[in-house]
């Protein structure tokens, strides 16, 4: 039986969905820094951010957008654990 998650990732990557690309990279065991840096080449929004300190940059962005960092981390963590 094919893994539905991998099937979804393959389909989503072809649609240039960034989230799907990130999940795919994570599952392939890629470095998050390398993935973000390669992503930044085609996305100006990422350029200028400190991609070597991803957690720090994320916290800063959350503060700037009035997002509860702990709640966001908890939700993403739960979601990724569910996917795994």
């Amino acid at each position, binding site marked *: 039986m094919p893994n539905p998650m991998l099937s979804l990732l393959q389909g989503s990557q072809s649609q240039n969905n960034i989230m799907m690309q990130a999940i795919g990279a994570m599952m392939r065991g890629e470095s998050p820094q390398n993935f973000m840096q390669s992503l930044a080449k085609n996305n100006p929004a990422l350029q200028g951010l400190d991609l070597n300190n991803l957690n720090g940059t*994320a916290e800063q962005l959350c503060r700037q957008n009035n997002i509860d960092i702990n709640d966001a981390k908890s939700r*993403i963590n739960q979601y990724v654990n569910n996917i795994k």
Partner: protein
Amino acid sequence: MTENGSFFGSDWLGAFLIIAVLFGGFGGFGFGGNGAAAVDINGALATQSIQQSLGAIQLSSQNNNYETARLIDNQTMYLMNQQNSNLINAIQGYNSTNQALASGFNSVNQNIANLGYKMEECCCGIKTMLLENRLQDTQLALQDAQNKAVTSDQTAYLLNVMGKWVANAPATTA
């Protein structure tokens, strides 16, 4: 983050947070975004959940099929045994009925035979009685004929005497 390591606190968590905030790929998380990726992920999770459920249903179905087959087998054996018992009872019932019928027929045959004997006896009695009656009638007729013959003889004698008397009447004696 590795497959077996802790995701929480890893750099990947930070990467996802940045992507979620900047590209809005986590609409489903409730803090903005267009929700497109969340829909996809939700779909994937739903598919995964559905497949797990289907697997569980399939396993349950297989167990049910096995149990059903076992129950059917048991039920079939039970019904067959019951039918056999019913057939045995029926056959025994038929045997009893046949025995009763045979006994009844035997009694009827005996009665018919007895009736035949009685009818023959009765017929013989009737024939005998008829013959006896006929004999009696003949005897009576014979007796009557004999009586008439005697009367006739007597009458003839008297007429003869009377004739002689008329022809040769004796002289009167005054």
